[in-house]
């Protein structure tokens, strides 16, 4: 789950990282009240889960109430790369002496945590990674040993952080690491991490992605569920516990396992069809889950045929077949369904479906044949 900047800053503050004074609002009146309270100048920042806000005009500095009103009116409701701005973060603008970059994430290739720091922070950090890679110091952190103040200070020094800021940057890195580890984030990124003219180190921005798998030990995350930015199909899938990605084609796809789901999309495309979606019903799916999946795919008006591709491991064939029959009782579907069923208890499953063959339900023995059949039945080409 990606956090809005203001949520990220709230999370940072909890772990002891300095953030500018500020507050969040979703009205112009609210913005003015915050400005009055914290004093000028203030930064008015659009809260959307997408990068490039500054370049899109979603971040402005207001010197007084009149400017704050103008900018708040401009930015609220603004569209940034398809995201409508519903929330504003208003923060006291610090005086910036230097802009740094710092992040923690998992480096999958070595299965360790990775800390990255650069003295050349700011909007062009990705370009710097290409043009001047040495300007970004990368240090792996052993998950058992963690990071010490001395290590953090050493990383900062190697990144050419200004001498007088090294200790404070090291403290900031330790706070970020706590947020990353104890806060169960997949990513904690601050760009820019600034040095103020008053020699304070402050996180001017916040990019935090939480590890959804750790939600069971973070009841506080409940309040941050940013479901209002979700595609309605995605929201329905989330409610039903299904992994769903809309793709824009016309062959609806239901598979068990993310790998088989993607592989099914591959073979449909190779058969000349276009997948409407990726849908993984997960391991051990029951008849109810299958029924929910079929309902979801059936709701997409672009879907002209449905390809159910199941290879049973935990998922049992007879559960799949019963789920399909259960769903067929509940929904009115016009799109023909092609089923390919193999693996655990596949024969039981196939014999359950055998009685319903024809008209709108077909079974095929192989994945490639089923993909071809589903594409043909869609009748688009």
């Amino acid at each position, binding site marked *: 789950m990606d956090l809005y900047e203001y949520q990220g800053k709230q999370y940072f503050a909890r772990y002891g990282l300095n953030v500018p004074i500020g507050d969040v609002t979703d009205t112009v009146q609210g913005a003015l009240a915050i400005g009055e309270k914290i004093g000028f100048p203030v930064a008015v920042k659009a809260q959307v889960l997408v*990068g490039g806000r500054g370049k899109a005009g979603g971040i402005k500095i207001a010197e007084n109430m009149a400017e704050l009103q103008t900018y708040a009116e401009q930015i609220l409701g603004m569209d940034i790369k398809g995201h409508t701005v519903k929330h504003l973060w208003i923060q006291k603008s610090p005086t910036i002496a230097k802009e740094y970059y710092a992040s923690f*994430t*998992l480096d999958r*290739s070595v299965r360790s945590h*990775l800390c990255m720091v650069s003295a050349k922070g700011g909007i062009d950090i990705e370009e710097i990674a290409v043009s001047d890679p040495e300007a970004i110091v990368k240090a792996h952190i052993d998950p058992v040993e963690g990071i010490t103040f001395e290590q953090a200070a050493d990383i900062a020094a190697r990144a050419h952080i200004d001498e007088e800021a090294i200790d404070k940057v090291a403290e900031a890195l330790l706070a970020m690491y706590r947020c990353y580890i104890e806060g169960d984030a997949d990513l904690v990124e601050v760009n820019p991490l600034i040095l103020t003219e008053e020699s304070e180190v402050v996180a001017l921005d916040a990019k935090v992605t939480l590890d959804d798998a750790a939600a069971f030990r973070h009841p506080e995350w409940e309040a941050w569920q940013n479901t209002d930015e979700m595609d309605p199909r995605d929201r329905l899938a989330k409610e039903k516990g299904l992994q769903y990605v809309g*793709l824009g084609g016309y062959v609806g796809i239901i598979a068990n396992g993310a*790998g088989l789901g993607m592989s099914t999309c591959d073979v449909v495309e190779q058969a000349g069809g276009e997948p409407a979606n990726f849908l993984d019903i997960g391991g051990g799916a029951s008849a109810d889950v299958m029924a929910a999946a079929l309902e979801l795919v059936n709701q997409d008006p672009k879907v002209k045929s449905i390809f159910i591709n199941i290879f049973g491991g*935990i998922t049992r064939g007879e559960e799949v077949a019963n789920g399909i029959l259960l769903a067929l009782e509940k929904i009115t579907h016009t799109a023909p369904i092609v089923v390919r069923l193999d693996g655990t208890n596949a024969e039981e499953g196939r014999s359950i479906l055998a009685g319903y063959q024809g008209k709108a339900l077909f079974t095929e023995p192989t*994945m490639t044949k089923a993909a071809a059949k589903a594409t043909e039945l869609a009748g688009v080409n």
Partner: protein
Amino acid sequence: MSIFIDENTKVVIQGISPTSQALYHGLRNRSYGTQVVAGTNPKRGGEVIEGINVYATVAEAVRETKADASFIAVPPHGAPGAIMEAAEAGIKFIVCITENIPAKDEALIFHRLKHEFPDTRLLGPNCPGIISPGKANIGITSGDIALPGGPVGLVSRSGTVFYQAIYELTQKGIGQTTGVGIGGDPVPGTTFLDSLEAFEKDNETKAVFLIGEIGGDAEEQAAEYIKSRMTKPVVAYIVGVTAPEGRKMGHAGAIVSGSKGTAKAKMAALAGAGAIVADNPSSAANEIAKLVKGL
């Protein structure tokens, strides 16, 4: 031969109870011929479930039964503790199929094993397990889709495509030495590299079927090994050729991975290393069939 497990492997099922997932799969593994010698459950020590003796701890089970492998299917919050308990009890091969373990826990477990129990191999988490056809099966793979006798070794990140691949080979009458499902989580205990090294050393394995997936750079690392060390032919299929580009993890993701991670980059790396790259499971199996014919 087979890799990692064989007919002598003795398995303890951790967290066993009459209604557990672990029991369901454990019984299927046993009826396949796997030596399932014990179960553990702190609350059920002394019980016998479906003919399986239950001990309170893994240490006790190891002492009484000489178990050397374990199977873990407990929920995410309990899995890291179960893995460490097995390692501390002297288990050398741990299969953990548990899904949705937080990445932090996986990273911590992987490094704790590396520091404290370097001889213990973890397979998974979030994997289908491992099957050495005709000898042993630990995990959720349906045993009847596999064919004993080799000469093909399989290794896969995806679970269901792993079954699909085994099944395709079996349909063609091509046997398998071992199928290793390494799982798709960010911090797998066992990698492509570990499996390729083991297959390279295994006399009965004559060719390897590798099933990769978009994301990460495990396939690129495998490609480097294939190029520099591997003498046996490898056929590869990367799942997700048509998948849309995933979301980027901030700037950090872009800085770390660069262009790595896409199916195209992985296919190019593998082809460049001399592997035969196919674009779906069936055509990959056809390529294997051609190789096997020529052996």
